């Protein structure tokens, strides 16, 4: 019987394939080396048998006629779509020779290694870049404005990242005896159902809603969550930081915060000098005192007490530090100065945002803010889940630290059903997220010195191991302080997706001597490379996934022509570039990274997935109380003070505002009323489609059928004013350029905003330039600038620009 030959393989999703951040268990039905069908694995705790549209379309993806199936080198000019098939041996030799020449003549930092969204790629791109000797691993988005900034900002004030708790830490999930369902969840700028980003399964929130969780949805757009929310706060894009200040204002004014947490676990009691507006340090009090120790006022002894950062304790354990008040302190110089507490400073900042002011900035009614903040603060437990909207604004850190303060001050940090610390299972780190260091690193710290932007922007220096994207792009043109000569681009779309102002990127690529692109299909980006290498999908590789919990393997199920998994490609080249590369096989490397788990790759593969035991640092709850977060095992947080820092000591040292606040972004009707006259609509972008992951899947028939065109959502009244009918092609235009989209008249967007779909190119159109798969036709990035990133080198105004819209003239549309 034919069916007897079909074998069913258990494995885990992680790109390439569905494109997402992976983790779902699947069953792949394979016969004669072909994928017949893919199904959700009912035993897998993450998805419990469910599966998304993109994963279910894998049969059309794996065997797609347009898949890259063998290595090729450019045979014509860049962008002419002329290619010559070569063998892997030739490809490796060619790349080795070209890249070694660049290294010899210009230094290893002259090669940039470009990666896209959080796939099974970061560890292996870093492995290659570091073996080559370059610290310049680049995430191609302006201001690196996706996820990384959130992690780096949170690391600044609370040490470890934290995420909403859907009992994902336990194999028995919601049946875990210690688990509690959140009474309230804030969904902040996220339509997570559509793509399951950030290592979270979007429908966990739907599961929670069925169990009673009530939603506060913060989104200008009417999302599915917005429709079903107890409160839907439709803020003006870019004003999120004003809204969080309003929330904090309510919880402080109404005294809805956890006083015990404030006194015991934050640096609220630490004193700030009135004269310098800086934290008072032990070195101010005592001639040889440590500058890393801080000072509070003890109401018992009516004197100063020193917070010993190394001991994570006050020197006098019987002291009662005051979180509020002004105190006169004598310095070792004999000078007497007045100080106030960090908590008072925090409250003063928050007091600048009475709800009427917040309503004026955000457009959200004051009463709704008050009711929402009160509901969140009184709910036990309550969680926050935030999306990329928080990264996509220049003042990302002042926003993110405000949201962190909200969950911390309301006592929702690392409690069941709150925001719990997300640690790597068994401390196995391959994809070293901001704030984490893994075994894949540069040989010496010295080699990190030339990393672009790392000397200028301290979050990059301390937490975020990438080069600053905007500065890198500029450096390609200026060649200062050193020239950029080559780029390795792996499963990333700098032209069609990651790159804002793509014309500038197009010119930049022409400046480079050598470009390698590794991908699954040709894209506008691969068309500009000198060598193109065919990557395998997740079904074609052995790998493992250590992104929080669980630890799991990805198992090779099949092989497609000459395609090779990303990590096998990079492993071969890493060996060629680094004479000291210490691993013989990829599995030796896997075993080495997996060591902290006590399992080899093969052992883990036999299990499929593994959950860390209770009592380990990667298993919740209350870890800061149990001493499970810090390397020294003392209770507290992995911050310079060991406390949750309402007033950031690091940001003070870095000369950046230490506390949350609102900054109006650069291109809004408020900051640029001059531009608003010509471009009256707010241009937002990036709403997710369940059919696509960013720029991918436009060539998968079942998925394209769901979302066939680049859509511009326009409110019906706005459309009428602009004489635009439903389904008509329209131009979006601003001072940077224009692009055309298909109008969808829908009240899900407010009258004053349009929402343009992102990541559009047309795999069915002509590959050669100037078409480049029609990528210039409907790419919204042409209206979003580079170089508008935040003061700390992170965040950028991607979701709030300005535009006008008008109907396309007959003959201007070539789509149909």
């Amino acid at each position, binding site marked *: 019987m034919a069916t007897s030959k079909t074998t069913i393989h258990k494995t885990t999703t992680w790109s390439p394939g569905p494109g997402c951040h992976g983790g779902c268990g699947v069953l792949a039905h394979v016969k004669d080396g072909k994928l017949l069908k893919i199904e959700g694995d009912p035993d897998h705790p993450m998805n419990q048998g469910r599966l998304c549209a993109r994963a*279910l379309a894998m049969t059309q993806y794996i065997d797609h006629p347009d898949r890259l199936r063998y290595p090729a080198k450019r045979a014509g000019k860049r962008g002419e779509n002329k290619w010559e098939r070569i063998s892997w041996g030739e490809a490796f030799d060619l790349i080795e020779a070209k890249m070694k020449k660049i290294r010899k003549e210009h230094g290893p930092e002259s090669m940039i290694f470009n990666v896209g969204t959080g796939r099974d790629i970061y560890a292996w791109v870093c492995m290659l870049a570091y073996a080559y000797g370059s610290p310049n691993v680049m995430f191609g988005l302006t201001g690196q404005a996706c996820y990384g900034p959130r992690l780096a900002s949170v690391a600044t004030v609370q040490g470890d990242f934290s995420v909403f708790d859907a009992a994902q830490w336990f194999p028995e999930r919601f049946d875990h005896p210690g688990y509690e369902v959140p009474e309230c969840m804030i969904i902040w700028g996220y339509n997570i*159902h559509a793509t399951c980003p950030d290592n979270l399964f979007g429908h966990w929130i739907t*599961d929670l*809603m069925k169990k009673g969780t009530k939603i506060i949805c913060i989104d200008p757009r009417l*999302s599915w969550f917005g429709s079903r929310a107890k409160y839907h706060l439709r803020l003006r894009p870019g004003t999120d930081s004003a809204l969080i200040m309003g929330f904090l204002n309510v919880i402080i004014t109404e005294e809805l915060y956890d006083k015990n947490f404030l006194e015991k676990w934050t640096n609220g009691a630490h004193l700030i000098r009135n004269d310098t507006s800086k934290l008072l340090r032990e070195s101010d009090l005592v001639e040889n005192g440590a500058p890393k120790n801080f000072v509070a006022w003890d109401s018992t002894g009516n004197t100063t007490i020193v917070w010993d950062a190394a001991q994570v304790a006050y020197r006098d354990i019987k002291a009662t530090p005051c979180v509020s008040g002004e105190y006169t302190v004598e310095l070792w110089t004999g000078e007497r100065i007045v100080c106030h507490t960090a908590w008072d400073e925090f409250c003063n900042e928050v007091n600048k945002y009475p709800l009427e002011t917040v309503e004026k900035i955000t457009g959200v009614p004051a009463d709704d803010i008050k009711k929402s903040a009160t509901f969140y603060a009184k709910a036990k437990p309550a969680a926050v889940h935030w999306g990329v909207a928080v990264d996509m604004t220049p003042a990302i850190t002042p926003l993110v630290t405000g949201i962190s303060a909200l969950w911390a001050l309301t006592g929702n940090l690392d409690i069941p059903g709150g925001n719990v610390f997300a640690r790597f299972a068994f401390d196995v780190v391959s994809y070293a997220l901001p704030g984490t260091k893994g075994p894949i690193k540069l040989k010496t710290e010295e080699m990190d010195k030339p990393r672009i932007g790392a000397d200028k922007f301290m979050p990059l220096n301390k937490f975020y191991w990438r080069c600053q994207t905007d500065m890198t792009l500029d450096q390609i043109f200026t060649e200062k302080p050193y020239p950029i000569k080559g780029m390795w681009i792996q499963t990333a779309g700098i032209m069609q997706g990651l790159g804002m102002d793509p014309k500038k990127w197009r010119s930049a690529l022409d400046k480079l001597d050598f470009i390698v692109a590794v991908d699954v299909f040709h894209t506008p980006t691969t068309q500009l490379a000198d060598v193109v290498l065919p990557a395998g999908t997740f079904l074609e590789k052995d790998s493992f996934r250590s992104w929080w919990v669980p630890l799991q393997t990805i198992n090779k199920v099949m092989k497609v022509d000459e395609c090779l998994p990303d990590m096998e490609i990079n492993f071969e080249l890493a060996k060629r570039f680094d004479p000291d590369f210490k691993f013989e096989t990829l599995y030796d490397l896997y075993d080495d990274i997996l060591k902290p788990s006590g399992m080899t790759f093969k052992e883990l593969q036999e299990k499929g997935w593994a959950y860390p035991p209770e009592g380990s640092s990667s298993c919740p709850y209350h870890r800061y109380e149990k001493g499970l977060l810090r390397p020294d095992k003392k209770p507290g947080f992995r911050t310079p003070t060991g406390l949750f820092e309402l007033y950031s000591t690091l940001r003070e040292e870095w000369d950046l505002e230490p506390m949350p606040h609102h900054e109006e972004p650069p291109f809004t009707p408020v900051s640029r009323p001059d531009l608003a006259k010509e471009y009256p609509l707010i241009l937002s972008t990036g709403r997710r489609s369940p*059919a696509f992951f960013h720029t991918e899947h436009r060539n998968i028939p079942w998925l394209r059928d769901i979302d066939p065109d680049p859509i511009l959502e326009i409110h019906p009244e706005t459309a009428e004013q602009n004489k635009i009918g439903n389904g008509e092609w329209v131009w979006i235009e601003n001072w940077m350029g224009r692009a055309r989209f298909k109008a969808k008249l829908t*009240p*899900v967007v407010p009258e004053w905003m349009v929402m343009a779909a992102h990541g559009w190119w047309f795999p069915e159109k002509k590959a050669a330039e100037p078409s480049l798969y029609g990528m210039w036709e409907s790419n919204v990035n042409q209206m979003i600038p580079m170089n508008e990133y935040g003061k700390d080198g992170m965040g950028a105004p991607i979701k709030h620009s300005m535009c006008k819209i008008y109907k396309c003239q007959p003959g201007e549309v070539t789509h149909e």
Partner: protein
Amino acid sequence: MSKKHEYGLLIDYEYCTGCYSCQVACAQEYNWPAGMGGIRVNEIIQKLPKGKHYLTYLPFPTELCVLCKPRTKKGLPPACVKHCMSGCMTYGAVEDLAKEMTKKPRMVLWVPK
């Protein structure tokens, strides 16, 4: 009720999030070309008083739905029901599903075959 129309699909449209898994699961199961399949998801935007709106998605079984007979006779749930990301679809005997419907609002029972 005729015995021929004994089974149906119960949709809890309060929880359908518009993930389209049902649509692609069906296309995969029966290898339908894009544009065809046993179930299609519809977006419905309801206008409510005071300028409010409500967004609903509703999977609709088409003329091509066979209620996954090849699967159900093996004891497997229909492909759409199995993969539904929000678990808002139930397959079963119409009478049982009708009883289930009385437990909560925003439900619809389809008897496509």
